[in-house]
């Protein structure tokens, strides 16, 4: 069951690397949040109730509903329906994405042999999700896509953190979530500002500062 959920999570990233409608990204983000929630539910036996409550809040409420909804309102207000032509075309980026997944599985095999306390598939897929998010950030031009891919990077990291048995102190957990939340909020504010001030909200307009 866990394995299927993890593979599904990986597949969402493949989907993202082949679409260009911005709303599809947001829906994928919400789907990832929900998959992470299911993953938390599957592994629920090993955790303390306080941690479970917090994780349910983080995945189901924040990652599945609040952040995607918030970003959707930002997108609708700024009328940015589509990604503009990326640096590398959809076909090749899908090819590169598959390559990254192969690397993820290699990483999983490697992790299994190092003897650390690690669930290999979690490790491999989360590494793949992180690398793919970074690749998408480099490849896509719209700033809103960058924000969405940052969230996917965070989801990849969250998946990795689920594979560790040790629980972080609650104070730290709350701090991490708060940081994430404020970061997304500030991203949206500055995205709006860039949209207002510059002609179009993609990174090619940000070239004033250089040596």
């Amino acid at each position: 069951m866990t394995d299927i959920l993890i593979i599904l999570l990986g597949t969402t990233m493949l989907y993202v690397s082949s679409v260009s409608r911005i709303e599809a990204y947001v829906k994928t983000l919400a789907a990832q949040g929900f998959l992470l929630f299911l993953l938390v539910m599957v592994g629920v036996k090993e955790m303390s109730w306080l941690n479970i409550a917090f994780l349910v809040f983080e995945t189901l409420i924040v990652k599945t509903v609040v952040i995607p909804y918030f970003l959707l309102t930002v997108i609708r207000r700024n009328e940015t329906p589509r990604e503009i032509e990326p640096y590398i075309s959809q076909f090749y980026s899908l090819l590169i994405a598959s390559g990254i997944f192969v690397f993820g599985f290699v990483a999983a095999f490697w992790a299994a042999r190092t003897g650390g306390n690690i669930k290999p598939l979690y490790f491999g897929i989360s590494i793949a999700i992180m690398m793919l998010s970074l690749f998408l950030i480099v490849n896509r031009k719209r700033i809103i896509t960058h924000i969405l891919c940052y969230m996917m990077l965070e989801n990849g990291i969250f998946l990795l953190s689920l594979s560790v048995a040790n629980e972080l102190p609650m104070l730290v957990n709350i701090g991490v979530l708060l940081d994430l939340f404020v970061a997304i909020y500030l991203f949206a504010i500055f995205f709006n500002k860039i949209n207002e001030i510059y002609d179009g909200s993609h990174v090619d307009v940000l070239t004033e500062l250089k040596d």
Partner: protein
Amino acid sequence: MITLVIILPLVFGVISFAAKSRIVNRVALLGSAALFVVVALMVWLGIDWRWLPDWLLVYFRFDCIGLFFFAVMAIVFAGVSVYSLSYFSEHNLNARQESVYILEILAFVVAMAGVILATNLALLWVFVEATTLTSALLIYFEKKKSSLEATWKYIYICSIGIALAFVGIITLSIGSERIGSLFFSDLYLHASEINPVWLKLSFAFLFVGLGTKVGVAPIHAWLPDAHSEAPSPVSALLSGTLLNSAFLGILRVQVILVRADQQAFSNIILLLTGFLSLLVSAVYMLRVKNYKRMLAYSSVENMGIMFIGVGLGQPGLFAAMLQTLAHSFSKTSLFLTSGNILHSYGTKKIEDVQGLLKRDPVTGWIWMASFLAIIGIPPFPIFISKFFIIRAFWVNGQGWLAVLFFLFIVVVTFGMGKAVFRMAFGDSGIEGAGSVRPASSAYLPQIVLLAALVIVGINMPNLVNEMLSKAAAFVSSVPAPVARVAGR
């Protein structure tokens, strides 16, 4: 103590934000700055004062290296606060704008204090991210088009970097499963039990994450933009304290590797990035056209020197600590002075500034003196730290690296010197000497910082020497107890 520096400044900030009165603003800003200095002194003297419940105190503590970085931050912040008064009047800010500035700057400083005092690696991460978020608003304070671009690059690059640092924290807890805690004291005590493969992997991730905030090459892209576009007092705070607090994060992780006897791995990374930073700053120093960006590249260079000092191990550590102190003070002085120049000439271009010594002699002389301080002309202490680093290369039997190091430093000095002298001398374009006279708060902080540096350079007070040696011993492999100086 912890209550005083973590909570009280925030309360001050909120009060000044709510009151929106000029007097309350000044009391809040200068009061918080004084508070930081007093707390640093009291901790040094061993005066203990607990207000918070014990379960919360576990997460914050003054240890010997933390106290050193805190003291540097407190002094720099005090200088910046005094300078901010002249920034307010020169830019004709109204009481509301002032209070926004003060709330943001206090939140930023509290976040940095959190980084310095945190006893848990994950908590340190939380505060490092908090410094990014709070300082982003400050960089955009002047609300110009170019500062928006700088802010976006800063907040986005640093957030990605910090996200990768969290991967480092997770991989560390995978490798240290038997320890089951991310408190530094536990990690240091049981460092040898951590799986070395995962430890190295986690160092790599943490280095990328925290190194992005330090602004070391090749992950320094945000630094020149943010430093040049922020208001000058904020640039000073970014360069003089923010880079240090992220550097402290790397040092704390380095201690784990030292205790686990894996420092050969981290030292190579530190040396490589250190030299790369020197190379990058040497190249850009020769072609940069904006004097605030020039100062930012000088920060890249100096952080590189600190990394090299740490990477050299035991012989270079004292030099790295001295460099930290001296760089913070002299770079703060430079950035604050650049604010005066910007106000008087209205441009950031080097070629448009001439005759500074004629137009505004006080600023001109401080500008020259701060330049001498940052490149390390005796009696300024950067001379000592650079000399110690070159000596450390010889002690380690890497004399050829010392030659390379020297070469880079000469190039940087040449590039920076050319610009600084060009700005200082020549025709001012305005009749009469001393036609511009800034308010006393616009040059007093720099004079005090430079005087302190001269004292440290000529005859280092025992207090400073002891603080630097203890901080250096904390990072070195000599097994020192995880002692705290005093207080909590």
